[in-house]
């Protein structure tokens, strides 16, 4: 949907300092009430119930796959088979790490707290997101989803720069930027933007984690020099780049080309149906509308939550292919017309309670 002439949108609008955040605040879009379907408390309690078994099973299987593919990659060294073997290893190392980082960050994957915390730290390293910084960034993403100048996790920022988006999709943006920021944090500094959303009492934790990461990377790079080989970095570090495509493939449809500055997750999130293998790799984050409405519901209960609220939501996309059939032409359109966005139709009898329109 577009109202005609291209509207102005600058990348600088997305900055937390000097961006469009103050305008969003004046419009009542910051920390606002979002639309939520009515779900009986008894049903929500059942959906929110925690358990360890599913996440233990899935985590054991995931690391078994990483170890297995890592063994294949190691055995294939010196042959052309190393290319597909490392591609598989990196994909399994970094791809599912995104959803594990996400679910354990919410603290919902396991019932046992230390299991969430442990996997959060490890998965953060694998996907290369600084744990404390991204925990707070993600809290903001949930408070002000796709609110320009408030949400740091807007992947397809306007105006669309195709090469920039492709570079991000294949992992060439996040990990290098995070590596540089890790070094800054390890030197005892946080970026000024980060200080706006991370409470001061958490700064020390962010710095300590950055120093631990720096030590791990220094050891890995040192080992490369010692062995005169890139192989250690192919197993630790570089997979965060060359394996990133999978989580971007899953993650881009979450919000791409949907309107900014609306207060209804049915309008600015997509739920995409996926097969069992994809849902294992993505830990059901394809149920993204539902996750944003009720972040306390664990990944293993999201299919049931979807059933509970689906009559109140626009139809889910039948597959990733169906979602990308909409997204790719929409991105091309946004390249020329930054005012364009995909408008989702809400169920007729249940209009959004708090939607405020695109507001741009």
């Amino acid at each position, binding site marked *: 949907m577009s109202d005609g002439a291209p509207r102005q949108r600058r990348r600088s609008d997305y900055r937390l300092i000097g961006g469009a955040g103050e305008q969003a605040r004046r419009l009542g879009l910051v*920390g606002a009430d979002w639309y939520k379907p009515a779900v009986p408390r008894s049903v929500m309690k059942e959906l929110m119930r925690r358990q360890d078994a599913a996440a233990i099973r899935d985590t054991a299987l995931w690391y078994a796959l990483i170890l297995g593919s890592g063994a294949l990659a190691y055995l294939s060294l010196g042959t052309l088979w190393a290319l597909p073997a490392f591609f598989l290893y990196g994909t399994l190392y970094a791809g599912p790490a995104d959803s594990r980082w996400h679910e354990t960050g919410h603290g*919902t994957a396991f019932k046992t707290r230390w299991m969430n915390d442990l996997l959060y730290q490890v998965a953060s390293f694998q996907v290369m997101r600084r744990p*404390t910084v991204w*925990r707070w960034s993600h*809290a903001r993403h949930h*408070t002000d989803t796709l609110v320009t100048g408030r949400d740091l996790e807007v992947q397809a920022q306007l105006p669309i720069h195709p090469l920039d988006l492709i570079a991000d999709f294949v992992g060439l943006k996040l990990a290098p930027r995070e590596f540089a920021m890790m070094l800054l944090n390890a030197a005892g500094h946080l970026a000024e933007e980060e200080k706006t959303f991370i409470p001061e009492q958490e700064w020390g934790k962010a710095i300590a984690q950055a120093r631990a990461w720096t030590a791990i990377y220094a050891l890995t790079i040192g080992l490369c020099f010692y062995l005169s080989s890139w192989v250690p970095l192919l197993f630790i570090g570089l997979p965060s780049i060359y394996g990133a495509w999978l989580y971007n493939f899953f993650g881009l449809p979450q919000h791409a080309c949907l309107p900014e500055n609306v207060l209804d997750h049915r309008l600015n999130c997509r739920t995409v149906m996926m097969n069992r293998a994809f849902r294992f790799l993505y830990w059901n984050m394809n149920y993204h509308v539902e996750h944003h409405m009720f972040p*306390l519901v664990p990944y293993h209960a999201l299919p049931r939550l979807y059933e509970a609220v689906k009559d109140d939501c626009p139809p889910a996309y039948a597959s990733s292919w169906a979602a990308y059939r909409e997204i790719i032409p929409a991105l091309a359109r946004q390249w020329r017309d930054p005012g364009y966005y995909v408008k989702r139709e809400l169920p007729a009898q249940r209009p959004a309670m708090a939607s405020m329109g695109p507001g741009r």
Partner: protein
Amino acid sequence: MTGWLRVGPLAEIEDEDVRRFDHDGRSYAIYRVAGNVYATDGLCTHEQAHLCDGLVMDHVIECPMHNGRFDIRDGRALGAPACVNLKTYPARIENGIVFMLVE
């Protein structure tokens, strides 16, 4: 206003659950865990979400918005993103009715 306030029948709160109680322009959260009742401020100290929509596990309430966690017995924030403790209030059961003391 200071004094013991009548919140409502205990039977209206399931065990290991929470309900909202509004009084004098303020919102409180009333919990029932293992036969005891507890009362805290009703809004999360992180970003003011209503805790009555959250999850009670043992003596911990988890905020529905960002999963900030608090011990409902003393209001302690148990980890990010909850960093500021929650205010607690004395609560008691009398003849099946829940009361809380507001200062």
